[in-house]
């Protein structure tokens, strides 16, 4: 049993890191908004999904006009990433303006319900635009970066087998690392980042220190949504097929990752995302072996939610977070 698990371990790690990187960036969006507004932005998963659709639509359009063949693929991808992230960024700002800002002083339950509303609205909006244009809401983008590499794990020890990965996996991981380092730098080293941290600490006091709280919140939504949208494009390039309903479950798992790392904590979200991705891939590959065939890979989602529930019950502040006491 152990030998089998070890055999597949390198591949599980590679796939897990790729998936975990996606979770990590989406989790950042949740964690940033939660840190500043104490609101679970349910629509964030949908922003990710919209990003994926915008990206694929652009790629298809560029293929149609022959641009994709004319320029190097990586340049095209960067172009698509930039445009998509700007669009989804503004979308995030718009959502905050329309659906969350009027509710800033109402009970939390109401804001949460509005967030669920936005998420449902976006799902159907994307569904019918896609279906209207293409006759089918499941979209497959043009295939890019499909060359396969292998890492020779078997040369280290014969108990491992080789891990294969596509170029797109490499691009995904590099892009995510750049985004994360950029964000970490922005939040910790720049003036705007400091303003964001100040607002997250205490909104009223921050506003007394001549910080424009509304602007900072808009900026937070912009950055979180831009990152989410860009990840959507990377996801579409990596996994090929997308539909309007991928955002919800993926967003939920990313939220799990954020909780795992301690919500409101940016580095925690990154760590939590990677951890969850690897755990999930491990479960998908090995649940069948570990339980003697009783549970199969179809239970991997149950596994992710079980982690969420266990963490929330025993360590609600997350692995890297600090416990807060509630004020009455």
């Amino acid at each position, binding site marked *: 049993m152990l030998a089998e698990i070890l055999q597949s371990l390198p591949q599980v790690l590679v796939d897990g890191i790729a998936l975990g990187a996606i979770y990590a960036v989406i989790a950042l969006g949740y964690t940033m908004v939660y840190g500043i507004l104490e609101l679970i932005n349910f629509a964030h998963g949908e922003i990710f999904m919209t990003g994926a659709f915008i990206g694929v639509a652009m790629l298809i359009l560029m293929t149609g006009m022959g641009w994709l063949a004319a320029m190097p693929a990586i340049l095209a991808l960067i172009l698509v990433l930039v445009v998509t992230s700007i669009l989804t960024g503004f979308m995030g700002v718009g959502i905050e303006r329309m659906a969350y800002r009027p509710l800033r002083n109402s009970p939390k339950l109401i804001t949460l*319900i509005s967030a*669920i509303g936005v998420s449902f*609205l976006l799902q159907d909006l994307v569904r019918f635009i896609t279906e209207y244009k293409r006759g089918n*809401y499941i979209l497959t983008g043009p295939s890019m970066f499909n060359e396969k590499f292998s890492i020779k794990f078997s040369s280290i020890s014969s108990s491992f087998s080789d891990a294969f990965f596509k170029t797109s996996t490499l691009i995904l991981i590099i892009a995510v690392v750049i985004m994360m380092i950029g964000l970490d730098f922005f939040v910790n080293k720049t003036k705007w980042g400091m303003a964001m941290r100040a607002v997250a600490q205490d909104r009223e006091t921050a506003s007394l220190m001549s910080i424009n709280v509304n602007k900072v919140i808009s900026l937070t939504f912009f950055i979180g949504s831009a990152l989410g949208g860009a990840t959507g494009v990377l996801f579409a390039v990596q996994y090929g097929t997308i539909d309007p309903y991928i955002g919800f479950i993926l967003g*939920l798992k990313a939220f799990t990752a954020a909780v795992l790392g301690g919500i409101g904590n940016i580095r925690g979200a990154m760590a939590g995302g990677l951890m969850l991705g690897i755990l999930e891939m491990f479960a998908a590959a090995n649940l069948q072996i570990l339980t003697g065939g009783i549970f199969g890979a*179809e239970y991997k989602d149950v596994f992710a939610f079980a982690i969420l529930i266990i963490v929330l019950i025993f360590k609600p502040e997350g692995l890297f977070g600090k416990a807060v006491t509630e004020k009455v």
Partner: protein
Amino acid sequence: MQKLTSKLKGNKLAQIILLVLYVLVTSLSLYLAQASVTAFLLLLFSLLILYYTELPDRLKWLIAGIVLIGVIPFVSSTGPGYQSYMEVATVVGIYVAMALGLNIVVGLAGLLDLGFVAFFAIGAYTYGIFATGQAANFMPFGTFPLSGESFWIFILIGCFVAALFGVLLGIPVLRVKGDYLAIVTLGFGEIIRIVFNNLDKPVNITNGAMGLASVKPPEIFGYQFVYPNQFYYIVLAILFFVILAVRRFEFSKIGRSWKAVRENEIAAQSVGIHLVRTKLLAFAIGASFSGMMGVVFAAKQTFVDPTSFTLLESITILVMVILGGMGSVPGVILGAAVITILNLQVLTEVTNYLNQLSLDGVISFPEALAPAKMQRFIFGAILIIFAIYRPQGLIPAKNPVFDEESLKEGSKKHRKEKITVEPDKGFQA
């Protein structure tokens, strides 16, 4: 118009006459024009008018009973649309009971539950497994499927099993609250769905994604319940008890402690409310209504599979509660009726009409925009609009206000006279 309403106000006889006239006209139009959905909807609308009249409560219940038990089934019974009308009415009843259950959890206790459909699924599968041959795979004794006579006991069993799962969900969940609770319950709903979807191995309990087919219909003294018009009366009977129970709970000590927990947990605890017991009760009671209706649903459809219990269903029930008004029983009933009729009747009718138009070549209408497919869009819009502009819903919740002086005097008669009703402030802050 204003003159008319001011004249009607206080004049009970005029209200009764007008209501009876309205019911007569709409029933007659339904009786004569059988295919008319509008007449059917207008007839149902009479119940809302009844709610707004100033008649004494007992009379209101009596009239509502007559309309529901006698008038609606009778006048729609003569034409070809009979079963489809009764089907709609039955589904409305099922959703009303579920929405009332969720109303206890969300509206009164303030615990946002996004996996509520799981309890419905549990009820449906409880009956489904035992009323098909499926149970023979894991039950060492007894012959399966059980006969349709067992349906009546299973209503109670479904109720208890769902309540049990409500408590089971509640126990771990008690430590988290607010947004976290919403996420955890969402996860719970998904887990239940995935488990039902995959529980065909190692022992085939739920038959996986294939679902349970040909569930035994209910039976009493050899009389089988197969058609929607028969289920209509079952649902009506259960619904009667559910509404009775909800109204009793709301203004009892438990109901008041739910509201206290909703407003401020810590303050509620400090005045001596047992937090764990209160929350678990809310989960259990809410879930039990859902479980009962799950049993009815399984018997009515004679087919149970996991696709009926998705997140969309949970959100649908939530939309009903929000639209009607959180914490308000008449509101939630209205919300459930509006949303179910919108889904089952209005959207499909409009779609058919538009399809007909594009077939005739009047306008070209893309398939993608069919209103029947726009459920999520509509629900999303309703949630946002109501959250922003009308968080208290269509019929806001009301709280009785007692006059302290007259309470102290203690005379029963006195107390009854002094009770006024004032909007519940819970969701308006």
